[in-house]
């Protein structure tokens, strides 16, 4: 039985295909269209899913959509009625897409896919809950979902047991922890639904002391937090329910200045505000989780929703709550709901037992050796070919040890926003200048943003103060931990200003080639840790095809591209006119 899950029309469109309850293919549309956070109908992602299984759309038994559009539309209309006449601009700009697409999902699916059956619609937060629980290793778990907003709901908690899910309580729009974080993201001059992670990365530069950070006290005025973690926002400080911007003038006054413009300097005040919102987020999250534990009395917690990408808070959960085990899937955000809705249909609605756990994120397209060779030959690209994986690992590890920047393109593309060793840029974490080199030559990103380390799971405890045992979401780069102090100066390029690192752990069974590469580098350098950053430039989606990878290398300062068994040296090939700096966006 094949079930297709679809998520689109808000942000991060995606498609996921289940075959008899096993996720066989999943990808975000942005990787194919090359438009970051693409919201359009995921026709390319669906085509990939079908081609991967060599099936046609007629062989799909069910298609599921990740929300109930009419309930969401009711919420949108309620916003306009409440805010009349202030919402006229957003009404005029947003309503056509509702009329043309969002309220016609079944028609769009039938038209674009030539699908003859109906479409199932699952509530947004239920799709989130299913996306984390039904593919988790837990038979029973407490569930927490937090995002910007679904239909009406912004936060829920409940329980998952076997193949059943029940969401017990909710907090409704306009009160939203996700939108509070996004509003501060907008206030700090970053883009909403994209750059929240930059605020998280900026926060350690601010005062993380609740008693000394004046903006922490100020921001507490905009949110009323109860002991059980429930909350409401003071809507005098926000305009997002009727405008296309988020903070109100009152919020600007509270935070001692106007909204930061994109290219202006980031001051200590901005850093303190970033720290304050991170502290508030953690306050609410831990109160919520402690309350959920008291109600559910289960040691396992699964979390989904865009706020699940807050890896700094995730890394503190087991220390600040009674939960013993935690699980998040590689894409806890809206993109991940395509997996959620498909799993919900298969297990919960149709009643099939669970026997699948998502152990790795490699669910995207792959390219065979002959396909890559054909691409290289066709484009007259100079390359060399290694004879086997052992030689590939030896050569690549040596190149990294000699401070080269490597584009690593191997196997199936990752599911979710993080590069996890299939479409990664790898470099030497021991070189103190590597952060600067990567920023200037490749990533063109803000100096305050740290790079992430990757380490084999059996080495992680030596270098990081991880929870014991290391939680599985660490494999998906969703947990930030402190780096042990004696290693700070040894791996400076991945040590953030507060001594933390957003590590990825890798298990041999997940990706043997990647695992062996890190081990080999460890033998050369003495420290088996690499910098792993996504294979893209700022503002572009992660590369998907050999063409994307080659283009990215030639437009940046990546020294070598390692694609399958092919080694391509940038210097050996004519430099493209493609100027990555020109294309670098927010």
């Amino acid at each position: 039985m094949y079930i297709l899950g679809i998520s689109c029309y808000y942000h991060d469109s995606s498609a996921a295909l289940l075959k008899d309850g096993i996720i066989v293919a999943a990808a975000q549309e942005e990787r194919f269209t090359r438009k970051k956070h693409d919201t359009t109908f995921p026709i390319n992602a669906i085509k990939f899913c079908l081609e991967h299984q060599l099936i046609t759309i007629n062989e799909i038994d069910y298609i599921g959509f990740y929300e109930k559009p009419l309930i969401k539309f009711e919420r949108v209309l309620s916003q306009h009625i409440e805010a009349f006449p202030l919402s006229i601009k957003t009404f005029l700009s947003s309503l056509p897409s509702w009329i043309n697409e969002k309220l016609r999902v079944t028609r769009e699916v039938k038209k674009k896919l030539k699908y003859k059956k109906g479409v199932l619609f699952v509530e947004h937060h239920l799709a989130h809950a299913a996306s984390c629980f039904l593919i988790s290793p837990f038979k029973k778990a407490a569930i927490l979902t937090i995002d910007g907003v679904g239909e009406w709901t912004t936060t829920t908690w409940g329980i998952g047991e076997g193949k059943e899910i029940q969401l017990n309580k909710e907090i409704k729009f306009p009160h939203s922890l996700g939108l509070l974080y996004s509003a501060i993201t907008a206030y700090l001059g970053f883009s909403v639904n994209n750059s929240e992670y930059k605020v998280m990365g900026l926060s350690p530069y601010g005062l993380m002391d609740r008693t000394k950070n004046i903006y922490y006290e100020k921001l507490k005025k905009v949110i009323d937090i109860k002991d059980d973690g429930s909350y409401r926002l003071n809507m005098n400080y926000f305009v997002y329910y009727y405008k296309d911007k988020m903070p109100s003038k009152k919020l600007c006054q509270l935070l001692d200045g106007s909204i930061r413009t994109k290219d202006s300097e980031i001051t200590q005040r901005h850093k303190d505000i970033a720290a304050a919102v991170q502290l508030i987020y953690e306050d609410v999250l831990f109160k919520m989780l402690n309350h959920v534990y008291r109600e559910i009395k289960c040691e396992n917690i699964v979390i989904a929703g865009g706020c699940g990408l807050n890896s700094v808070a995730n890394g503190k959960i087991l220390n600040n709550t009674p939960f013993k085990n935690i699980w998040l899937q590689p894409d806890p955000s809206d993109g991940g709901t395509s997996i959620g809705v498909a799993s919900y249909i298969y297990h919960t609605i149709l009643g099939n037992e669970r026997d699948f756990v998502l152990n790795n994120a490699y669910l995207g397209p792959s390219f065979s050796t002959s396909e890559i060779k054909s691409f290289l030959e066709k484009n007259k690209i100079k390359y060399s070919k290694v004879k086997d994986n052992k030689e590939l690992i030896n050569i690549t590890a040596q190149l990294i040890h000699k401070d080269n920047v490597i584009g690593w393109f191997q196997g199936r593309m990752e599911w979710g926003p993080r590069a996890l060793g299939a479409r990664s840029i790898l470099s030497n974490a021991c070189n103190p200048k590597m952060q600067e080199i990567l920023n200037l030559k490749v990533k063109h990103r803000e100096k305050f943003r740290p790079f992430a380390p990757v380490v084999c799971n059996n080495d992680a405890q030596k270098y990081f103060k991880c929870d014991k045992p290391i939680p599985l979401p660490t494999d998906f780069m969703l947990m930030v931990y402190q780096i042990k102090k004696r290693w700070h100066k040894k791996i400076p390029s991945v040590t953030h200003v507060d001594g933390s690192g957003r590590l990825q752990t890798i298990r041999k069974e997940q990706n043997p080639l990647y695992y062996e590469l890190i081990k080999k580098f460890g033998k050369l350098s003495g420290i088996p840790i690499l910098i792993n950053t996504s294979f893209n430039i700022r503002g572009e989606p992660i590369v998907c095809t050999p063409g994307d990878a080659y283009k990215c290398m030639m437009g940046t300062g990546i020294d070598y591209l390692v694609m399958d068994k092919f080694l391509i040296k940038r210097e050996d090939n004519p430099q493209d006119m493609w100027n990555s700096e020109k294309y670098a966006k927010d």
Partner: protein
Amino acid sequence: MNKIFFFLSGFKEGMRQFGQTISIIINSGLLLIVYFIGIGFTSIIAKLFHKHFLDTDLSKNEKSYWTDLNLKKKSIKEYYKQF
């Protein structure tokens, strides 16, 4: 021949843009009518009766802001509905 082709393709593009502009004007006009009559009228009536469509109140006295949801499995027919 090339000149004719160039003219025709330019003409076609011009007509497309013209069509788009006309459709934006008509759509905006219709949406303005819907906004002021549909949304506006409802909003005024709601305000007269103190009816709020978004719950924005804060209460220091309430112990919790959690509200009941009880969202669980329904029959498959319910999932074919968009509401």
